[in-house]
Structure formats: structure tokens, C-alpha cells
């Protein structure tokens, strides 16, 4: 019965002050939009990190060098110098040849560095120049798009050949076919024998396609020298055997380096571990973003209270008239509460539209991923904000004494 009329009064009240209502709505709009968009960005960056890690290769284990469990001071005091031994090709060959690691399928030694590459005046910095064996390609999930990979023969003969990623192709060659051309890597001429299929994902600082693969021997000859390997890439037979493979590799390496678990001079990382670390990092990131957005939503809510307080003060006389005509307290309360809720719900709905629209754009290489529950949450919160933040001014209006309200100037 009366509810519809009260709703109409509320609408009329909002329309009487379009600019003000619009600006208040904007406050909520920004809050809700920010919640949705920032959570989507957080989610998107999480997804990007995960995609990046899985693009490294499935079932990938990485053996890297690590200082021993004792610090230098402690080590020198006791006189037992803890020597950080190198990762060597011999280690890689041991892992490949041993029959004590049945869960390991492929092993590739890796020496990597970054260097400047030039081709006929074009120059680019390749983040990752990977010197390795051909076996590295399946481990790192790389496939050859054009030309061919380098071969074991190339490794044995120290041939200066290279397979380049798509970013390098674009940066150095543009539209020219790179196969068979010679580029300078750190001043040394390499012949391009193939290109890698694009992996995508990542961003400017972490582009998986800004890569060049070359024979280990050649890279050691011309770029990294013959120190330690950067890492040994190991592929487990399948995802389920990754943990078993990690244990086997660890025990083989302990034996080969004559160390105990306490003084390990290497570490074996497993993709699953990386994934969970990355997941928890992005989780924190998302929570932070959401907190910032929630604060802006709160500020929007305070804007609603503020504007409704002004409205009630301005319209005290109107409230007096309505009361003199027999408006019950509930009708006045309802009218102003509906005004506040309308402000915030309309702002919330527009904020959802803005947030969803905004998340279609890529933000610094991160493709936002919408979280449906965040949309529901943000919209719900905006409605609740209207109720909570509108109830103070609405109550104030409803409690006015008719004669005092009428006397108000």
C-alpha cells in the first residue's frame, strides 16, 4: 500500500538534486568498481604467475648451487672450510646415467647468462641465453616453430648455432626470416638454426619468449666460461613422481658431492613447491588490493551518510509538513532510508558495470580475471552500506518533532 508511494517520494527527493545524487553515487561506483577490478587484477596476476611456472615445463625439477648450511664465520672458526662445490656436467651425466633414480626421465645441464644480441644494426638484450643439451627443449616445454633445434653433434663440436625465442625474432629481424642468418651474441657470431614457438604470458621484465638456446659447450666457450653450471634441469616421469624424483636426485647429489643433508651445497626445487609459494604470494597481493578497494568503498559509504545528513537538514521543513499531515515515523524513516539505499545500490550496480568493463583491459601485462563472488560481495556490501550509513540520517529525520521541524528555516 504505502510502500510504493514512499518509494516514489524517495525517487523524487533524489531527482530534485541530480548533481548531488550523481556525485554521491560516483563515490560508491568507484568503491565497488575498485573492489571488483583490483581483486580481478590480483587474481589475474596469480594466474599469470602460475601460467609462467607451468610454461617452464611440467614435472620440472631444478638443481641449483647453494652455499652450505654453515656461514663462513662458523666454518672458518672450526677450521672445516665449507666449500661450495660446482654443479658440473659430470653431476648431470650421473643423474642421467644412474639407475637409482627411476623416476627421472630426462636431464639437461644448463649454463645461462644474459647478453646483448645484434643483427645488422638491430640490438636487443636477451634475458636468458641458455647453454644446454637438446634434451632441454622437452623439459622446458619449448617447441621449435621454424627450422630445427641444435643437436648433440652441435654440442660435441662446439658449433656456434642458436635457436631463438619469438621476442628475439621480433626485436632483431622484424619481418625477415631469421633462419640461416648470423647474429652476434656478446660479440660472438652465432648462426640461427631455428625459432621457438611463442609461450606468451609474463611481462616486460619476465618474458619467456626473450630467450636463446645454444649448445652448452659453445655458450661456455664464448659467454659463461667453465665455472659452475647455473642449474641442472631434471624432468620427472610424470607429475605424480615429481616428489619421488626430487628425493632420488637429492640423495644422488649428496653422494656425489660427499655432503650430508645438513651441509647441502645444492638445492632441488620442485615446480609444485614453486607453485604453492607463488600462490600464497599472489594471495597476499590480492588481499592487499582488496583492502585498499574496501577502504575506498568505506569512504563512498561515508559520502552517503554525509549527503543524507545534509539532505535531512535541508528538508527539515518538508519533514515537518509531512508529519503535520499525519506521516507516521516509519514512512519518514522509509523515505530517507530508501533514498540512501538507492544512492548506494545504483552506485553499486554502475560500479559492477565499471569493474567488469575495466577488467577487460590488460593492466601492465596482467590480464585481470573476474571473480564472480567479488562482484556479489561488492554489490551486497554497497546495498548494506546504504542501509547502515543511511540509517543515522533517516532516523534523525524520523525523530524530528513536527513543530520544531516546521519552525526550521
Amino acid at each position, binding site marked *: 500500500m504505502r510502500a510504493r508511494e514512499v518509494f516514489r517520494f524517495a525517487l523524487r527527493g533524489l531527482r530534485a538534486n541530480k548533481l548531488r545524487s550523481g556525485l554521491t553515487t560516483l563515490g560508491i561506483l568507484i568503491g565497488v568498481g575498485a573492489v571488483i577490478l583490483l581483486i580481478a587484477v590480483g587474481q589475474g596476476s596469480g594466474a599469470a604467475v602460475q601460467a609462467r611456472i607451468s610454461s617452464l615445463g611440467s614435472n620440472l625439477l631444478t638443481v641449483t648451487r647453494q652455499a652450505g648450511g654453515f656461514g663462513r664465520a662458523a666454518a672458518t672458526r672450526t677450521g672445516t672450510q665449507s666449500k661450495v662445490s660446482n654443479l658440473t656436467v659430470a653431476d648431470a651425466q650421473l643423474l642421467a646415467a644412474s639407475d637409482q633414480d627411476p623416476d627421472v626421465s630426462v636431464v639437461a645441464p644448463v649454463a645461462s647468462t644474459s647478453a646483448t644480441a645484434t643483427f645488422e644494426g638491430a640490438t636487443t638484450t636477451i634475458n636468458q641465453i641458455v647453454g644446454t643439451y637438446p634434451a632441454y627443449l622437452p623439459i622446458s616445454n619449448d617447441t621449435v616453430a621454424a627450422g630445427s633445434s641444435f643437436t648433440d653433434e652441435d654440442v660435441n663440436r662446439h658449433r656456434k648455432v642458436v635457436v631463438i625465442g619469438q621476442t628475439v625474432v621480433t626485436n632483431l629481424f622484424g619481418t625477415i626470416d631469421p633462419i640461416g642468418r648470423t647474429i652476434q651474441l656478446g660479440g660472438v657470431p652465432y648462426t640461427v638454426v631455428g625459432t621457438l614457438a611463442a609461450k606468451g604470458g609474463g611481462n616486460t621484465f619476465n618474458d619467456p619468449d626473450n630467450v636463446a638456446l645454444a649448445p652448452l659447450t659453445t655458450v661456455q666457450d664464448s659467454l659463461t666460461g667453465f665455472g659452475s653450471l647455473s642449474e641442472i634441469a631434471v624432468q620427472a616421469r610424470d607429475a605424480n613422481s615429481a616428489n619421488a624424483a626430487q628425493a632420488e636426485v637429492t640423495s644422488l647429489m649428496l653422494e656425489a658431492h660427499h655432503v650430508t643433508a645438513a651441509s647441502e651445497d645444492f638445492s632441488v626445487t620442485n615446480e609444485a613447491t614453486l607453485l604453492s609459494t607463488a600462490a600464497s604470494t599472489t594471495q597476499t597481493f590480492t588481499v592487499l588490493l582488496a583492502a585498499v578497494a574496501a577502504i575506498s568503498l568505506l569512504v563512498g559509504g561515508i559520502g552517503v551518510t554525509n549527503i543524507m545528513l545534509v539532505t535531512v537538514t535541508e528538508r527539515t521543513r518538508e519533514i515537518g509538513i509531512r508529519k503535520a*499531515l499525519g506521516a507516521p*515515523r516509519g514512512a519518514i524513516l522509509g523515505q530517507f532510508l530508501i533514498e540512501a539505499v538507492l544512492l548506494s545500490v545504483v552506485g553499486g550496480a554502475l560500479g559492477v558495470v565499471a569493474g567488469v568493463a575495466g577488467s577487460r583491459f590488460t593492466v601492465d601485462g596482467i590480464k585481470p580475471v573476474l571473480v564472480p563472488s567479488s562482484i556479489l560481495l561488492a554489490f551486497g556490501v554497497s546495498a548494506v552500506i546504504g542501509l547502515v550509513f543511511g540509517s543515522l540520517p533517516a532516523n534523525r529525520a524520523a525523530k524530528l518533532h513536527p513543530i520544531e521541524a*516546521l519552525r526550521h528555516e
Partner: protein
Amino acid sequence: MTEYQSADGPVTGYAPPRPSAVWISALRKVYGEGDAAVHALRGVDLDIPHGDYVAVMGASGSGKSTLMNIVGCLDVPSSGEYRLDGIAIADLDERQLSLVRNRKIGFVFQSFNLLARTTAFENVELPLVYGAVRGPQRRRRALAALHLVGLGDRVDHHPNQLSGGQQQRVAIARALVTAPSLVLADEPTGNLDTQSSSEVMSLFDRLNAAGRTIVLITHEEDIAAHAKRAVRLVDGLIVQDVRFAPVDGLPPRLATAGAGRPAAPSLALGPGA
């Protein structure tokens, strides 16, 4: 509420005498406290039977508006007793008070107090909305009230598109639309010229002739001459109470101007609710 309420309905057999429209005893109103206290009313006794037409007069600051606001249930007295149609107003809670304001009282203000940016029709409709009268009936009654005050052709005008006299007539239509038994008017002609004043006053005359109880405040003797009775306030006390015409008869102006002329039938908006 009190036993008197049933007096409005049809009663078979023994019928108790109908309680007065307004019955006031030892009414006091003090604004402020201590040294700054203003005694606006100092013990007013007043009995207004149904059908009466009372002009309240007195110097500025004598307490007329204060009295009127209390009678209209917009303000509460500091002490004393007030019964409206037999109902002790002091006993009512907030919700019942708003019902009384809505159903039993029509208030007309000196400054019109129409809602801005709201058409004449919607202004008049307002008390019916709060009285929970439904769509078609609400529309019919609001239009009837506007026709009654001669503004059938100004239904969709906003207050700022109407003259002062027209605005006051919209306000009167709004006061009448719920068919209240008591119509209160605080200087209804205070902001109007002679022509508009006489239009408004003849409206009140005809309303009273149709049975409504009217109390109005005025400073002018010739406005007061429309009433059946004049009450004079000085410093918050009633010092004079004169009757010009009997409660049951026609108001003086109608009685002299056209003896035997029937009240306009369109005034029959129905008896007090």
C-alpha cells in the same frame, strides 16, 4: 483510547452526549527554563463543541499560535489537559498521534506550507497517502477537494506557478481531503490580499455550514466577524469569549447574506471521519 470513540459511530439505544471537538483545561506552555522561561500559555480553559466556528484573537505574542499548535497535536503542553473528540491526547503514543493528525485534524498555515516541486494534486493527495487510501479512491477524493476550493483547473500546477490565494486554497483542500472533524487555521489570510482573503473566508463559512468545526487565528476584526464566536488571548490567558451566533445555526455571514440559500452541495465531503 477512551470510551468516547464509539460516539462517532451509530449508536442504538442510549446515546451518550457527543464529547466536545476540543476540550482544554488549565493548559500551560512554558518555553525554555529558569530565568529565560517564557510562559506562552498560563492556564487556558476552552470548550469548543462540534460545529462551532471560533476566531482566536489577541496581540502578537499572546500565545495564539502556541495554543493552535497544541490543539493541532503538533506540540505538547507543559501541563494541563486536552481532549480532542473525547480522546486524551497525552495518552497517545507516536503512532496514534500521527493517526489523529491524519484523520481528525486539518491544519492550514499562514505560510501555506505546500511541498515545493510537487503539483497541487500531489500536495492534496499527501494526507490520503499517509492515511493509506488506495489509488482510484485517493485520486477521486483529491480531485473533489481541489474542485471544492475552485482549483479544478490548476491540478497539475506547482506551488510556484500559483498565486498566494491559490496556494492557500490548495492548502485548504489538503486540510479538507481526509474529511477531518476539526479544521485549524493559523492566520490563513495573513499573507493574502482582500480579494483572496474573502475567497478563503467564504470557503471556511461554507465548510462550517456543512458541519465542520473551525478554529482560526486572526488579527482582523472583519475576518473574526465570519465566526460564530471570538476568543481573545492576552499574555497566555483567555480574557474574553464572545458568541455572535448559535453553534447549530449558519455562520453569521451566510445567515445574513442569503437567508435560506442552501450551502453548496459540493461541500458535502462527508462527515468527520
